[in-house]
C-alpha cells in the first residue's frame, strides 16, 4: 500500500505495481494506478489502512504525519518510511523500496539509470553561469523551495542559484522581496489548478511588481515537479535544458 503519489510511482517503476492493493488519493501515475482503490490523501486514516490488512505500507517521511505512521506501527503493520528531502534521498528511497518488495535488482538498475542522467545534467551545466532563480511551489501565498528540499537540489543541479536558500523548508516569501530580489527566472509548476493562480499572482498579486514581474517564467509539469520520485529527474532535465539550452545544442540528434 502506498500513502503518497511518489511512492506509488516508485513501486510501479521497480516493477512491483502488481503488489499494490491501495494507493493514496492523488496517485494517478502510471495509468494503472488509477484503477487501484483509494485510501485517503496524505493524511489517510489509520483504521482504513489496517482494515485492508497490508503486508507493507509505504509512507512518506515528509508527507505523511508522524502520528499516523506511529499508529500504524503500533497496530503491528510494517511501515517503510521513505524520505524525499533531497535527490540523493530519492535515489536511496528507490533502492529501499525495491529491496523490501523483492525487486532489488530492478530498483538498482533504475537508480543507476537515474543517477547517470543526473550526472549528465551536472556535467553539461558545469562551469556555466548560474541563473538567479526561485522555485515557487505555489503563488498565493508565494511559497518557495528553501534549503534542504529536493526541489532546491533540482534547482541547483539544473544550473541555477536558489535565492531562497537562506531559509530551510518551504518559506513563504514577502512581496517586497519578490519585487526587489535579483531574480531572473521563476520556476513554477504547471497544472490546471496552478496556471490561473500564477497568472493572477503575476497580474495583480505578489508577483506583479518589480523583479518578479520582469522575471522569465519556466513552467514544469506539476506531476513531475512535486513528487520526489523517478519523474523528478525528468523535471531536472527539462529545467536544465530550458536554463542552459546551449549545453544541449552541441549534441547531434540521436
Amino acid at each position, binding site marked *: 500500500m502506498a500513502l503518497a503519489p511518489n511512492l506509488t510511482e516508485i513501486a510501479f517503476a521497480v516493477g512491483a505495481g502488481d503488489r499494490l492493493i491501495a494507493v493514496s488519493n492523488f496517485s494517478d501515475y502510471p495509468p494503472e494506478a488509477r484503477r487501484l482503490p483509494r485510501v485517503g*490523501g496524505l493524511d489517510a486514516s489509520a483504521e482504513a489502512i489496517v482494515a485492508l490488512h497490508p503486508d507493507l505500507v509505504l509512507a512518506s517521511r515528509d508527507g505523511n504525519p508522524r502520528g499516523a505512521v506511529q499508529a500504524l506501527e503500533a497496530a503491528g503493520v510494517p511501515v517503510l518510511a521513505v524520505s524525499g528531502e533531497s535527490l540523493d534521498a530519492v535515489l536511496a528511497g528507490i533502492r529501499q523500496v525495491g529491496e523490501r518488495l523483492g525487486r532489488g535488482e530492478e530498483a538498482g538498475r533504475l537508480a543507476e539509470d537515474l543517477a547517470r542522467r543526473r550526472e549528465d545534467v551536472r556535467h553539461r551545466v558545469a562551469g556555466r553561469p548560474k541563473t538567479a532563480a526561485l522555485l515557487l511551489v*505555489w503563488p*498565493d*501565498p508565494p*511559497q518557495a523551495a*528553501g534549503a534542504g528540499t529536493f526541489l532546491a537540489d533540482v534547482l541547483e543541479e539544473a544550473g541555477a542559484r536558489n*535565492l*531562497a536558500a*537562506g*531559509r530551510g523548508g518551504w*518559506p*513563504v*516569501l*514577502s*512581496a*517586497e*522581496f519578490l*519585487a*526587489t*530580489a535579483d531574480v531572473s527566472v521563476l520556476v513554477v509548476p504547471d497544472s490546471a*489548478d*496552478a496556471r490561473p*493562480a500564477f497568472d*493572477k499572482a503575476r497580474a495583480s*498579486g*505578489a508577483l506583479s*511588481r*518589480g523583479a518578479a514581474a520582469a522575471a522569465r517564467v519556466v513552467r514544469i509539469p506539476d506531476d513531475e515537479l512535486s513528487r520526489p520520485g523517478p519523474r523528478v529527474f525528468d523535471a531536472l532535465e527539462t529545467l536544465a535544458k530550458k536554463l542552459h539550452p546551449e549545453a544541449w545544442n552541441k549534441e547531434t540528434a540521436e
Partner: protein
Amino acid sequence: MTSGAAGRPRLALAGALGLLAGAGLLGILVGGVHLSLPALWSGAGAEGEAARLVASIRLPRVALAALVGAALSLSGAAMQALLKNPLADPFLLGTSGGAAAGAALASLAGISPLLSPAAAFAGAAASSVAVAALARRGGRLDLQRLLLSGLIANAFFSALLLGVFSVASASAARTMLFWMMGSLADASFGKVVALLPWAAAGAAVLLLYAARLNLLAVGEDSAAALGVDTERAKRQVFVAASLLTGAAVAFAGIIGFVGLLVPHAVRAVAGNDQRRLLPICAVSGAALLVAADALSRAVFAPAELPIGAVTATVGAPLFAWMLLREP
C-alpha cells in the same frame, strides 16, 4: 487600581499617537529589505528606484494594518463594555467564524478570489444576525444569551470549516489556511479604500454611543433609569462592533489578540471612560498592528510570517504578564 480609576487619558492619547507615527515609519523602513530615509527621499538611480518600489509595496500594508488594528481594537473595547467582561474580544460573537466560513465557501464554489472580502463580510454579517436573533428573549437582547449563542456560532463554523477543508483541493486549502491565520500580504490601496467606509461607520456609531456605553457598563437597569433606550443602545453597539470586526476579517483574515489586549492595556493606563478609551484604543491598535506587520516581515526575511502568528506569539505572553500584574 493605581492612580485612581480616571487614569491619564490625555497623556495616553498623545503617547498612542506617537507610537503610531513611530510604528508607521518602522513599517515603511523595515522589512527584508532595509530602507533608510535619505535613500527614500532623494535616492537616485537604481537604488532610489528600488527604495521607492519597496515603499510603494509597504505603504498600503501600513495603511491597511493601521485600519485593521484600529477596527479590531475598537470592536474589542466595545464588546468588553457591552458584555461587562474584560475578557471579551471581537471574535466572541461568531463574526470570525462566519467570515472564515463565508470566504471558504466562496473559494470552494470557485468564486473569484477578488470577491473574497465580500463573501467573508457576508458570512460575518449572517453570523451576527443569527447570533443576535438567538439571544433575543421576550423582545430584549439578553446579553448572557448573546455570549452563549456566540460560542455556539463559533463552534458551528469551526465544524463547517473543517468540512470545507477536507473537501477542498490541497491548493485551495493552503490558500484558505494562510488567510485564516491573518495576512496583510496583497494589501493594496484598493483594499484600504474599500475598508475605510465600513471602519469609519462602525467607529462613528461607537463614538456616538460612548457616553451611553459608560452608563450601560454600570448596569442595564441603572442606565435605563437615566433615560437611555437600552435596547436600542445594545443593538447599535452590537451592530457597529460586528461591522468593524467583519470588515477587518474580510480584508485581513483572523488576527487574534489585538481586540483583547489593546483595550485591556489602554484601560489600565487611561481608565475606562469610553469617551476617552475608544479613540485611544483605535490609535493604539493601529500602532500595534503596524508594528506587528513590520515584525512579520523582518524577523525571518525574506520569508514572511502570517501576522496572526505574530500577534499571538507576542500577545499571549504579554497578556499573561498583564494578568499577573493585576492585584
